[in-house]
């Protein structure tokens, strides 16, 4: 018996430890190569000498501007659709078909969204290569995920609260707004954080829709091009003419990106722990 259980301990444990080893190795490699370059100056100054020196401020700025804008575009449609699926949609074939489509959309390769964004926003809507086109494209990528998250968060609130409020003669929309949504908030926010963590690292949807290789200044206009962390890393790592010289900057940028993604990921995890158990 003891032998058997220790067999399963190793059987299940070894892959986990191998995986942990890879993560630890990867992170420490990044840290070892990135830390020497990292400094406040690096975070808050412009690139110099064709990006072989200086900082990555416009890159971080672009990434956040892009992500926040994409998030704003996706929030309302996702929230409304999620509420619709959780509380208004009838249990019929149309609903089933819509839900299936949305689920498969969230598994669609990001590059497909990129091409679609190029066709729709850049060309047809004539937004040009711009932050606006990119953030709209990115929001398309997030909406299916956020719809599913919203629906699940709402359905995680015990149905008994809903019934209790309806039985008091309270209008359905008020019940959702005042009882269900506040209870679903931690799970909803956790989903939003995870979406953020994913959005900030996406490169395919912005590739053809507005991201720039190098810009001299930052712009608050959403109709301008922009720089973004993942694309910056890609360029520094593979396309730059002095590839060895910019490598430390690529490492440091990766570290910054990893930090942001991880922060949002951990934030989501903390929020999830806050979720109440009712009974």
């Amino acid at each position: 018996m003891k032998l058997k259980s220790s067999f399963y301990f190793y059987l299940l444990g070894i892959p986990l430890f191998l995986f942990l080893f890879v993560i630890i190795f990867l992170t420490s490699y990044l840290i070892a190569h990135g830390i020497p370059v990292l400094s406040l100056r690096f975070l808050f100054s412009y690139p110099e000498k064709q990006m072989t020196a200086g900082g990555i401020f416009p890159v971080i700025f672009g990434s956040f501007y892009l992500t926040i804008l994409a998030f704003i575009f996706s929030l309302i449609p996702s929230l409304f659709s999620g509420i619709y699926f959780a509380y208004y949609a009838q249990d019929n074939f149309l609903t089933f078909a819509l839900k299936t489509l949305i689920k498969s959309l969230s598994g669609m390769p990001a590059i497909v969204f990129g091409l679609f964004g190029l066709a729709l926003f850049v060309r047809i809507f004539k937004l040009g290569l711009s932050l606006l086109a990119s953030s709209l494209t990115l929001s398309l990528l997030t909406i299916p995920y956020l719809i599913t998250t919203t629906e699940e968060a709402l359905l995680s609130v015990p149905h008994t609260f809903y019934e209790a409020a309806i039985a008091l003669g309270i209008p359905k929309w008020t019940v959702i707004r005042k009882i269900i949504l506040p209870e679903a908030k931690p799970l909803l926010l956790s989903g939003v954080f995870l979406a953020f963590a994913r959005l900030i690292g996406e490169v395919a949807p912005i590739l053809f829709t507005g991201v720039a290789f190098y810009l001299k200044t930052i712009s608050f206009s959403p109709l301008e091009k922009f720089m973004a962390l993942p694309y910056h890393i890609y360029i520094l790592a593979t396309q730059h003419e002095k590839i060895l010289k910019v490598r430390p900057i690529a490492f440091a940028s990766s570290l910054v990106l990893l930090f942001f993604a991880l922060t949002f990921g951990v934030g989501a995890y903390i929020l999830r722990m806050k979720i109440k158990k009712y009974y």
Partner: protein
Amino acid sequence: MKIKIRFENFSLWFGERQILKNINMEIPEKKVTAIMGPSGCGKTTLLRSINRMNDLLPNVKTSGKVFIDEENIYEEKQDLLALRKKVGMVFQKPNPFPKSIYENIAFGLKIHKFKNIKERVIKALVDANLYEEVKDILNQNALTLSGGQQQRLCLARAIAIEPEIILLDEPASALDPIATAKLEELIQKLKKDYTIVIVTHNMQQAARISDYCAFMYLGEVIEFGKTEDIFVRPKDKRTEDFLLGKYG
């Protein structure tokens, strides 16, 4: 004796399955009427057709009429919010909102635009025999109360918005004997102001607290009458069998 609720040839289906079969029954005003019967006989469905909570479920069909104060509540134009304000409900499992004790009662009051919210909250708590136990912790989350207290809070929440009818769906099934006794005492007190309909599968409870009693079996009301008549001289063999504990 005034009739408050009247079922007239009322039937209900979930999809193809008929749950209620041609119900005819008259529930008197300001009395406690118990609906008893074995599990799955349709008693909860019958109760929930009085405030049309069955409408929340998919594929529900009804035929026939249910009158409250001689108005058919299954009319097309029936205002469901007004109906549910008039017909309060307490559920099988206590389900206070995950808010403070005060807010649990104030919530419905605010939405129905009552004035003097604070006085009304206190009055509802007093009427539900709960005020003494919670007067110092009104801002505490209602989910920290015991099951019996939660159930009385749910009753307070229901009566705060001044309904005329209170539906109780096996309200004591999740409670211990002492909490049950407190709740039953409360029901006795409330019947002078409200018409109370209570579903129970516990016939002793029905005998203790009800003035009128219906016995349901397989979706039909087999027998309805004064509680003492039903318990002492059941007319139908099936009622008698149920009272002798032959099915539960």
